[in-house]
């Protein structure tokens, strides 16, 4: 890894990273703040009056929306959170490889004594750091501010959310990173990854309202993302870890191999 490239990368991403992290902290705080008003019997009544399709639109239809887990998944972690973190990570991945090639700055960097392997491994390290920062910006405010608003998450639940959320982000970021490492056009990683995530989200929605679409679940990354169940039950299916870790590793290995063999100018 190149420490100089790492510092430069973080310097260049400091503003987007700050604003995405700030948005997540503010959003998490807002969700914690609203819980005492939303968690009462009136909200439960409202939630139960919604048609299952609408509930499925925001998350898991099996989850009680009036529960803490249901509330967080429906109102935050099942949709808006994914939009924010996907935008942050896709932006990073698109800019840091295909964007450099397309913008001509890759030529400048790789005419210096910087190997391709160091370049891509450093940019991967940047991806991991951003995932951890975004995860912290999401879950730490809930954990710290929660007790003031009747939200008590155990350390186990916190770490499960932190770990699983990080791995989901890493899987999304790695996919975008892979597309970026294989293309010249800075727009392609954004378009393709956004389309894949949107497709998965639609597949999740369909699976919640139709038994026919259940067959898509094993191939759908978002079907393993069940933060509501983690919050309510303190546990999650073991295969979620393996799926996210496996997708991340495969995408990063393909990105590495592809980048080491491609034309970069």
């Amino acid at each position, binding site marked *: 890894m*190149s420490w*100089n*490239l790492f*510092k*430069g990368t973080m310097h*260049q991403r400091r503003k987007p990273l700050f604003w995405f992290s700030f948005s997540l902290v503010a959003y998490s705080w807002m969700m914690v703040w609203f819980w005492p008003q939303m968690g009462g019997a009136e909200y439960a009544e409202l939630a139960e009056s919604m048609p299952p399709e609408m509930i499925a639109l925001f998350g898991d239809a099996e989850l009680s929306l009036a529960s803490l887990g249901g509330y967080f998944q429906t109102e935050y972690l099942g949709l808006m959170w994914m939009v924010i973190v996907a935008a942050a990570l896709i932006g990073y991945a698109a800019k840091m490889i295909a964007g450099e090639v397309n*913008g*001509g*700055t*890759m*030529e*400048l*960097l*790789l*005419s*210096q*004594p*910087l*190997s*391709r*392997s*160091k370049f891509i491994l450093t940019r991967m390290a940047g991806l991991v750091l951003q995932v951890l920062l975004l995860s912290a910006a999401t879950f730490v405010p809930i954990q710290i501010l929660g007790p003031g608003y009747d939200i008590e998450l155990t350390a186990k639940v916190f770490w499960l959310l932190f770990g699983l959320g990080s791995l989901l982000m890493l899987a999304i970021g790695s996919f975008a990173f892979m597309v970026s490492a294989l293309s010249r056009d800075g727009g392609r990683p954004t378009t393709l990854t956004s389309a894949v995530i949107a497709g998965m989200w639609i597949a999740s929605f369909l699976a919640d309202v139709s038994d026919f679409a259940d067959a898509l679940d094993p191939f759908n990354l978002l079907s393993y993302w069940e933060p509501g169940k983690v919050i309510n039950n303190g546990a999650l299916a073991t295969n979620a870890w393996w799926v996210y870790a496996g997708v991340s590793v495969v995408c990063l290995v393909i990105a590495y191999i592809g980048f*080491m*063999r*491609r*034309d*970069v*100018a």
Partner: protein
Amino acid sequence: MSAVIETKGMSKFYGKHRGVIDLDLSVGRGETYGFLGPNGAGKTTTIRCLLSMLKMTHGEARVLGEAVTLDGAALRQRIGYIPGEVFMYEKETGRWMLDYISGFRGGKGASETELIERLEFDPSRKIRELSKGNKQKLALIIGLMHDPELLILDEPTSGLDPLNQDVVFDIIEERVKEGATLFLSSHILSEVERVCERVGIIREGRLVADENMHELLARRLRELTVKFADGVDASTLGGMPSVEDVVSIDANTLTATVTGEAVDGLIKHLAAHSLTDVTLQHASLEDVFMEFYRDDAHKDSADSKGGDAS
């Protein structure tokens, strides 16, 4: 003389499109090599293959004695490269760029301050605020500040005013005197003529000439003007081998183009006449360059006519 740049059968294709084909180059240590060709001829592709930014389709290349590999970084520690088109991080300052690049090379360049002063560059300004010429100055400082052994320059004075062009070539000449090897790609022929001992001409991806600059110029075109004491006509020089384009300027003056090794025979032929003046002007590199391309164009045209006829 050990080769600093050596390629054997180096080819690069972009899919079906030609980049360079079977390029055999050899540039010795301390040599100044001009690499000439019009836009799209394959100059930048050659450089990018040598710097391992592009993967060669066939062939091999060695730079500074080491085989060029896609992941080679140590080699580039000894190379200063100035790209044909300068792209930098627009939101950053020149100072940030210089420090960033220095970070890859283990510290501040020994010549950084001197180059900033000589090129009158202001590093405190953001790159997006810089003119094309000032961006080019920054690229020059980045490429030269670590006193590399090998300078690979792709149109290094693009966008610079004549005064700064002169400063840049003074700097390059100083580096060469200190022992650096120069590989200069350009289509500004006067620049190449000023600093290069050897020149390669690339056309449609193939090297069509690779010669010593003086020999190349000496063997190629010369513009002859002869003033005779008595009236003459064009037939006086007509029919002589390697004397072409004979034109009668006035009753006493002829001009012609002399090619090849015809000078000796020409002078002996002229000695039989009473002359008042003779000038024999060497061709500029530009004339030589155009000669190569004109010849190819004629050949292509003839081929095309031959094809039509059949």
